[in-house]
């Protein structure tokens, strides 16, 4: 059975060529904006999966990004364990438009949901206009 070990979104994911280690910085927990739609120029989705003996090595997967119940983006991809028990993927999303505040959910699955990561999108106080009747 495929098990998710780690799933997250961040502003930066770097893989060191020498050590093959991953560095993740600025993990996204929540987003705040005074105005919507909000455009995120770049974000990284990272996940680490573990399989059991006997599980397939190559699995077709899908990353679905939803805001509340509205689908924003769907990314099909292949996860290849290459004979190992663990495999990781880094998906760079080069631009995402968030139309309104809500709960931004990154669902990772292969038919069934394996793991998900949620970012709260808030509207923060912008300039207010007050109209008073005479």
């Amino acid at each position, binding site marked *: 059975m495929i098990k998710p070990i780690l799933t997250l979104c961040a502003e930066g994911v770097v893989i060191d060529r020498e*050590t093959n280690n*991953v560095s993740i910085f600025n993990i996204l927990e929540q987003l705040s904006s005074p105005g919507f739609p909000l455009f995120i120029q770049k974000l990284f989705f990272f996940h680490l999966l573990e399989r059991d003996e006997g599980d397939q090595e190559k699995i077709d997967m899908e990353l679905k990004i939803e805001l509340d119940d509205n689908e924003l983006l769907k990314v099909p991809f292949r996860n290849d364990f290459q004979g190992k028990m*663990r*495999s990781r993927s880094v*998906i760079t999303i080069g*631009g995402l*438009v968030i139309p309104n505040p809500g709960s931004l959910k990154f669902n990772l699955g292969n038919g069934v949901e394996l793991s998900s990561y949620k970012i709260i999108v808030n509207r923060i106080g912008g300039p207010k206009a007050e109209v008073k009747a005479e």
Partner: protein
Amino acid sequence: MKLTDELDLNELKKIYLFSNTPLYLYNNFKRNKSIQNLSETDTKTLINHFDKIIIKKPTLDNLVTLYALIMGLTFKDIHEVNGFFDKLDIYNIEWAKEIRNIYKAKNIPTQIYKVKARIIRPEIKIISESASSPMQIKDSKPIISIKE
């Protein structure tokens, strides 16, 4: 110019002579800038060069160059070099097998995908005078409004 001319052989020979374990050799060769530059060469050329040197006289220079080529190949995707590393046992290189094992143990398969932003084209829509706002935003697409 030969492929391995850019190698910092003096430094690599020093590392080789000081190495008391395969891991020391692996880590220090991997950090070496000239090997990192060598790894930019395509896999096939590196393997062909290895095949040319392995049949030469086993001098210190040749041995260090062979290790450098093996280490250069550790920067490649495992799919490209699996065959090469699997047949390393047949050569008489002292730590080749250990280097192969370190490389395979350290290698966690990583898929990298890039998704480009969806291009949102402005939608031109004619709206009547009675519309309350000159700009309407629908489905996140900017709408350029033209009054009749």
